[in-house]
């Protein structure tokens, strides 16, 4: 562990951001277990994919900005990429699940004309 010349307030801020983001991701994943149907479960992990991801990446940006003594916004690249791709993957997955469920005629499948 390289304990750099980081001020105490900086270390506390980095830790608070990282722990808050991780706790939000964990909360979202708990929804993966607790919710009943697939169409409810597909919403749960996005809590980690949006705010949890943003807080952890903000902790990383803050840490490297304080230790390198200049603004290091590299992690914004990851954030931008995830923000663009997460809705695409989850909509594709939900449509695939809908296609499979309609083909088999399950019980709690959303109707064709139903607005979500």
């Amino acid at each position: 562990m390289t304990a750099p010349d980081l001020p105490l307030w900086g270390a506390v801020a980095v830790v608070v951001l990282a722990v808050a983001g991780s706790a939000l991701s964990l909360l979202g994943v708990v929804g993966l277990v607790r919710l009943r149907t697939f169409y409810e479960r597909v919403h749960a992990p996005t809590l980690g994919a949006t705010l949890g991801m943003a807080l952890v990446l903000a902790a990383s940006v803050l840490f490297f900005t304080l230790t390198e003594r200049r603004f290091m916004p590299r992690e914004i690249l990851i954030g931008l990429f995830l923000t663009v791709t997460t809705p695409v993957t989850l909509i594709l997955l939900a449509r695939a699940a809908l296609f499979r469920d309609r083909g088999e005629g399950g019980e709690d499948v959303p109707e064709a004309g139903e607005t979500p």
Partner: protein
Amino acid sequence: MSGAVLSWGLGVAQLLLVAAMAIAAWRIVRGPRAQDRVLGMDTLYLNAMLLIVVFGVRTGSDLYFEAALIIGMLGFAATVALAKFLMRGEVIE
């Protein structure tokens, strides 16, 4: 002092992320259907990427950033390919 705060606090964050990965792996094992397993795998990828970012902060090394970026891209490609497979039965038509 700030080294101890960083070490312990980031250790707690890593424990939370590992717990999230364990729960996602449980969803992959349990199913009950293929789309649930794909959703669990997507969540597992996301949490692994966040874990590697936290590793990068803990060690102060630049290399972990690139690993996290590549894992994020691989997760996107894998989930899209699996969703396409579930819908069509093949990935490239």
